[in-house]
């Protein structure tokens, strides 16, 4: 497989994974975490 085909494959995988993740509500999980103060991130634990 040359690099051009590898790039196309990875881009396609990226789009498919992104859509699959959105379909199974991962984006909502990310949002839920991102809109509240992340105590671990800020060092409270």
């Amino acid at each position: 497989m040359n690099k051009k085909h590898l790039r196309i494959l990875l881009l396609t995988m990226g789009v498919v994974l992104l859509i699959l993740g959105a379909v199974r509500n991962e984006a909502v999980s990310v949002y839920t975490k991102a809109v509240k103060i992340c105590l671990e991130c800020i060092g409270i634990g």
Partner: protein
Amino acid sequence: MKRRMVQYISALLTNVNLPGFIQGRIYQGVSKHVCVPGLNCYSCPAAIGACPLGALQTILASSRYTFSYYVTGTLLLFGVFMGRYVCGWLCPFGLIQELLYKLPSPTWTIPRWAGYIKYVILIVFVLFLPVFLVNNLGMGDPFFCKYICPAGTMEGGIPLLASHPDLRDAAGNLFLFKLLLLVLVILLSIKSFRPFCKIICPLGAIYGLFNPISIYRYRVDKEKCIKCGKCAQNCKMGVEMYKESNSLECIRCGECRSSCPVEAITTTFRLGNDSK
């Protein structure tokens, strides 16, 4: 300077909710569903997007999922398009380190072997521990965010603790430990160029893997190159561009291109292979 301007604009665009610093509240708009390309804590009051590393660990540490299609897909797209161009041009924490490096100080060169540490941190703290070190409910912690990430302490911890007395009361040894790590990174950044990116950053480790195949990449014309080594002398990331044009450490800052006396280094943005 073109790159610096892009860095400022990118930092501002990902942290455009500036009133959040005064209000002590983090942004809750819909854009927080989406990961930004660079390392930028989503608990920063100004952040309007999600940090990809934080998002990845959130999914991996949850009891519901053991793999994140969403964040992996996002990282694949950023990586295949840009590789570590993200680090050099779009990452706010990279910009902070570069500004610190401008302060006058004797410099210190980070040994090359230290660059492998970030891959260990990626595997252990981002991918392994959040999945396998879980409580009775099957939930883990975002270990990199919790025990290492100085961006979270700087962008989220300090401003939020400054505006929330209850958070200040809750801060204990973990916060002190992370604050010490942040101070260490700041001191190292004054003496060395981007020490966090070189040694610690798991996001840079991920994007670096895409450098050899990314659509935006560097190319050295072997016929023009006179192997004078000027590119290597001017590279603050320690890359010998004339030997390895798509090194995993290259952040695409362009110093090598501007220092090349024969203009042998060019950039390309092509899906297909290079013509030479």
